[in-house]
């Protein structure tokens, strides 16, 4: 059966070149970089050059990067580490209603410890309101955390402007760039970013490795305690092969980003156009222009998302209903809710995220299957009545 993977925002397979670069560090150059002997020093060398390479891509110094077990840990560390380090200065954190769960749950955890959290609204395209941000900053505010680009609907935030506002007001700025690396042009110095979370597996790197950038001068308490790795900031034996893989994946993603993005945008816009032209009662979620190059997200009225997902799956097409993290939960996506999508419509949200290997032919196949499945599911739905090709609520 034909298989079309359109869930690259959930995860990607490791690029063959990347895997090839990682492989020697599993069984051959396997030393612990903390060891003083030659086995350790060889491993340390690979870690150092990986760190240098990633720092260059982000516009920071190598000693401002700390490796973590992924984007989730980086988000936890940034939010919780800044809170405990600065809570004597203030207990107020500003974030948004459309953050990844790693940020939201970390903020909710801190609320139990006495933190006050402001969750900024977004407009119907999922863009944060800069006026509301400015008005929310008080002298108790220590941190603003805004996702660079949303993982569900793909909306890209005005990160540089947020950075400028935070700098002017003297509060720290964290951004979760897990979905944005390679897709959005980021320079942490130019954009006044104080902390930034990364993960490798969204851009053809391995799962289970990420990084937190912490600007020199920012105090961020360590989160994983123990040994002296990462200059005493993040304990745990250094994951050499995965770090090498992350650096290789990021280099490929960032250095080829123009070309990659051009191709992805063509696919994205074609699918959006074909759905809007060919499928009634379908609504695009997210911003039309300030949007991740690989993200298409639609609601299909009268249909529930999981059913559509599983039907497409039977035809070999992999998509996501909402985000991989929330599918399986009963509540509608917190992102769509924040954008004002009514719950019965939000139930049908379906995310298609393209990758390097997708083609225009994939789109033909997907649109064909989509039409057929939506016909079937809508025919089955008590909410749907076909009237002269037009659909209305019962």
């Amino acid at each position, binding site marked *: 059966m034909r298989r079309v993977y359109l869930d690259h925002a959930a995860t990607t397979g490791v690029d063959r070149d990347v895997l090839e670069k990682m492989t020697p560090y599993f069984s051959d150059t396997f030393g612990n970089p903390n060891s003083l002997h030659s086995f350790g020093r060889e491993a340390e060398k690979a870690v150092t050059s990986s760190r240098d390479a990633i720092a260059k891509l982000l516009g920071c110094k190598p000693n401002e990067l700390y490796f973590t077990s992924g984007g989730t840990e980086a988000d936890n560390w940034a939010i919780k580490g800044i809170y405990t380090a600065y809570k004597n200065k203030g207990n107020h954190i500003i974030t948004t209603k459309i953050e990844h769960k790693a940020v939201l749950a970390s903020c909710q955890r801190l609320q139990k410890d006495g933190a006050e959290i402001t969750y900024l609204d977004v407009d119907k395209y999922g863009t944060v309101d800069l006026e509301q941000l400015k008005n929310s900053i008080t002298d108790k505010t220590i941190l603003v955390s805004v996702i660079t680009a949303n993982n569900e609907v793909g909306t890209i935030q005005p990160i540089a402007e947020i950075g400028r506002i935070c700098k002017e007001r003297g509060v720290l700025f964290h951004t979760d760039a897990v979905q944005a690396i390679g897709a959005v042009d980021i320079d942490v110095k130019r954009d006044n970013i104080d902390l930034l979370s990364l993960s490798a597996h969204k851009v053809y790197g391995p799962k289970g490795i990420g990084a937190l950038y912490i600007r020199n001068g920012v105090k961020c308490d360590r989160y994983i305690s123990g040994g002296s790795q990462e200059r005493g900031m993040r304990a745990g034996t250094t994951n050499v092969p995965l770090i090498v893989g992350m650096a290789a994946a990021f280099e490929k993603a960032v250095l080829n980003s123009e070309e990659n993005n051009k191709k992805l945008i063509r696919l994205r816009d074609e699918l959006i156009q074909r759905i809007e032209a060919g499928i009634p009662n379908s609504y695009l979620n997210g911003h039309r222009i300030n949007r991740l190059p690989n993200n298409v997200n639609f609601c299909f009225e009268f249909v*529930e998302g*999981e*059913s559509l997902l*599983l039907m497409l799956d039977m035809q070999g097409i992999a998509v996501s209903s909402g985000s991989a993290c929330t599918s399986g939960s*009963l509540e509608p996506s917190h992102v769509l809710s924040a954008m004002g999508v*009514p719950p019965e419509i939000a139930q049908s949200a379906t995310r298609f995220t393209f990758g390097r290997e997708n083609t225009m032919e994939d789109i033909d196949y997907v649109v064909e299957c989509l039409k057929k499945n939506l016909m079937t599911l809508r025919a*089955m*739905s*008590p*909410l749907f009545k076909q009237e002269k090709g037009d659909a209305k609520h019962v």
Partner: protein
Amino acid sequence: MYSQKVMENFANPKNVGVIEDADGIGTVGNPTCGDIMKMYLKIENDVITDAKFQTFGCAAAIASSSMATQMIKGKTIDEALTITNRQVIEALEGLPPKKIHCSVLAEEAIKLAIEDYRSKKKT
């Protein structure tokens, strides 16, 4: 995550549709919660001669509807009233914990459709 039986009943659901002159109709659920199930029954001499459904919901909801309608066809309404969501789950060879409520909807839809039939008969 779903059993083979669930997937069969989802991929090729039985008894999808509307009975225009139904003797009893039961609707349960709420689109804001993610599932609506509407069950149509044709009843002759207290025996369910036909059953159809329309469902807006996940695979488990569709499979539960398909299985429940199959289970009650040919049964008397008293027999049909004894059918529990557990029996629907068993017939489906299991449901994930998070999806148990779908089988409850099926049980409730049957009960409501029979209630509807009885209340209509009275009037």
